[in-house]
């Protein structure tokens, strides 16, 4: 092993914590939510004022609550209630879904990006 090897090893190990801090820092706050449901239902709602939204789904209405720039499911006709247990969404890019009811929510920071392989 040469001196250059040791220098690279030390730099790599020293920079690693910085990479963790940089990539794991707090995300940016979302400013809008896109709600989609069955039958091409799609709505984009700003998160700046508090409200309750009813979304028609396959089983019945999913009820969403917007408060303090966050959004969550509060009522759902599904049996598992995973959607309610996902809790509040507030960071750009977060998603939650109620699969039995076919209701999807994604929050974003204004510019919409893709979240899967696109062609």
């Amino acid at each position, binding site marked *: 092993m*040469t001196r250059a090897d040791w220098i*690279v*090893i030390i730099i790599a190990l020293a920079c*690693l914590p910085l*990479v963790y801090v940089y990539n794991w820092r707090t995300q940016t706050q979302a400013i809008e939510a896109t709600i989609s449901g069955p039958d091409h239902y799609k709505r984009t709602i700003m998160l700046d004022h508090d409200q309750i939204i009813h979304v028609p789904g396959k089983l019945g209405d999913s009820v969403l609550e917007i408060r303090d720039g966050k959004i969550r499911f509060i009522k759902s006709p599904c049996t598992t209630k995973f959607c309610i247990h996902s809790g509040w969404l507030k960071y750009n890019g977060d998603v939650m879904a109620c699969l039995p009811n076919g209701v999807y929510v994604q929050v974003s920071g204004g510019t919409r990006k893709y979240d*899967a392989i696109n062609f």
Partner: protein
Amino acid sequence: MPDPNTLSPMQITLSTTRDDHRIAWLTAAAVLIHLFESAIPTFLPGIKPGLANIVVITVLVMYGWRTAAWVSILRVLVGSLLLGTFLSPTFMMSLSGAVASVSMLWLASHLPGRGFSAVGYSLLAAMAHISGQFVCAYTLFIPHAGLWRLFPVLLSMAIVLGMINGIICLRLVNRLKATACKTS
């Protein structure tokens, strides 16, 4: 009508150099390891020991950057053809990693002074490899900021595995040089 016996059979002869044969043999070794490695299940998706890169680093130390670059790129090409992933996302990821690490190795091997041993090369190549793959994944497949949250974890693994591979290379190079001295 011409007599078929007077016609000489058509022959195409490709002139190959010693270098070409060497590249072909070494690529075959790298492809074999690549195939073997693709059969090993990993405990975390995205983490691979990168054993085929041991061949690339060893070739770099023994025969120089040009041969190593050929072996690295051909390994990805032939490996993807044999595994049936040619031009698929898997192939793009593989290729971007190989291109990134080969470029990094070019920089590293042109350093003045004593330069790096196999450990330094392997570590740099592993880090360049994972970074190249992340850039490719982000630009082509998953343009979502959340992808980068995975980067530190995989970079840590790259550093650990890069160093382990480097140590294997170092021992391999020492043995190869010892046998070369004995036979000559």
